[in-house]
């Protein structure tokens, strides 16, 4: 994610390529963040759900 001041010093075609790369990178960042957040939520609720299941289905 190149800051604006870096891009200002570049030629227009370079700027365009960089902006494309930047938007692609932003998408990848969002996707990874979402996946990792889902993993976190899975572990949090998963363990609580597991305990609730265990409480309602006790061992003999």
């Amino acid at each position, binding site marked *: *994610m190149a800051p604006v001041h*870096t891009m200002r010093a570049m030629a227009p075609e370079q700027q365009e390529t960089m902006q494309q790369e930047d938007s692609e*990178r932003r998408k990848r*960042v969002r996707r990874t*963040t979402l996946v*990792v957040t889902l993993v976190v939520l*899975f*572990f949090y609720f998963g363990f609580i759900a597991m305990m609730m299941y265990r*409480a309602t289905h006790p061992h003999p």
Partner: protein
Amino acid sequence: MAEPHAETTAHAEHEHMPHGWRRWVFATNHKDIGTMYLVASCVMFFIGGAAAMVIRAQLFQPGGKLVDPGVFNSLITLHGLIMIFGAIMPAWVGLANWMIPLQIGAPDMALPRLNNLSFWILPFAFSLLIATLFVPGSAPAGGWTMYPPLVLQFGDSFPMLIFAIHLMGISSILGAINVIVTIMNLRAPGMTLLRMPLFVWTWLITAFLLIAVMPVLAGAVTMLLTDHFFGTSFFNAAGGGDPVMFQHIFWFFGHPEVYIMILPAFGVISEIIPTFSRKPLFGYEAMVYATASIAFLSFIVWAHHMFTVGLPVSAQLFFMFSTMLIAVPTGVKVFNWAATMWKGSLTFEPPMLFAVAFLFLFSIGGFSGLMLALVPADYQYHGTYFVVAHFHYVLVSGAAFAIMGAVYYWLPKWSGRMYDMTLAKWHFWLSAIFVNVLFFPQHFLGLAGMPRRIPDYAVQFTDWNMVSSIGGFAFGLSQLLLPYVVWKCVRSGKRVEANKTWDGAHGLEWELPSPAPFHSWTVPPSEALIARGAEH
């Protein structure tokens, strides 16, 4: 490619660096946030250390009357929580913030605002935790493990403890998400996974451990909360629940937590030893695989903390053998560090001194860990000072020494100044001597049967407790040297001219000017630069 970087840096220095309190409160720059984490961790280290000093003063001789037993138990609990969640973990997050973008050629962390949030949650969490000392009734006094039913008996401090744990957990999770997203997406072109410095690798694996186990802790304490306030019986035997199940869930978090605190230390040591041996790291790939193996094994050893609760023999055997298996990848690491030093051109500046001490002292902690892994022997050691000695060797002379080594290693890069080498060496030698005076006698006390977490003890334990307390006071006092050395360096240290402070150093961070500019790698480093830095 170095020139355009220097150009944009100079431009950025003038135009984009915020000033005053806003720079820190609204910080999104990874270096500023890293600095705030490190300062906060240092403050918490001294608060947790003050609790330790009171504990050691109380235990100086039998019949100590310095604090009443309830307060003693609260101090034990808060010392553990503060040191783990307030000192060690934030220090690693601070180092990750400072170093990961510099080492992978990224301009910043991927999620800078989230980074700010994850830091600023911490002061609230720890204020809440420390405030439990002043609420009516008692501060939490059931140990950092928070086992029910004991922990459920505390009054107003209980929900404060749970909320503080949740906040710390959220902060750690946000930090881990940021690290993963940054490493996966912002590496400079050419910085392949197997070119990454070991510190980045160990942090990537640590971050995966964090996102897997911190939610488990959060789930466990949420269930404690509902047991206390909403009539559920997850861990309440009277209502059909199972208190031992809390121990299983807690240690499913707790054991990987130990590795969360020690894996980045392995990364730091793998940076320092090659630098001061002036040799590439021996077995880079083996180090990566060993780290990943340790992380994997950390998920299948949790019940070695609870051999005495009445596990089936088959479970005891499984957890005993899986625990002993950890010695294999750990041995690979220690061997590789020793092999890196073998026939190297060694010099012993403060970071190297801390790294070598780490090697010896962490190994002592590792060996006592193996002793504890043996089920029949654990029946004798469990709940004694032997366990206290073991984990302090791992966490103080292991994790904390590695953090100190890292500070002395990268401080010239952060500040652009060199610290007082003599004072830093004094800090090292006092720490290395007194950490042993403090913790080694605790092995003897544990083997002789002294239980942990008690404010008073039988007279036969007096001598070694006195030695341990003297070591504790001296170790505590010698730690004051660290902030002084850093403060003196930042204020009046001799300016460092070269990019590379240590002649044997490799890595992208050493290609940047010293101090590292406020905005670094705004133009990604060239492949040649990356290849040069990745000469493992």
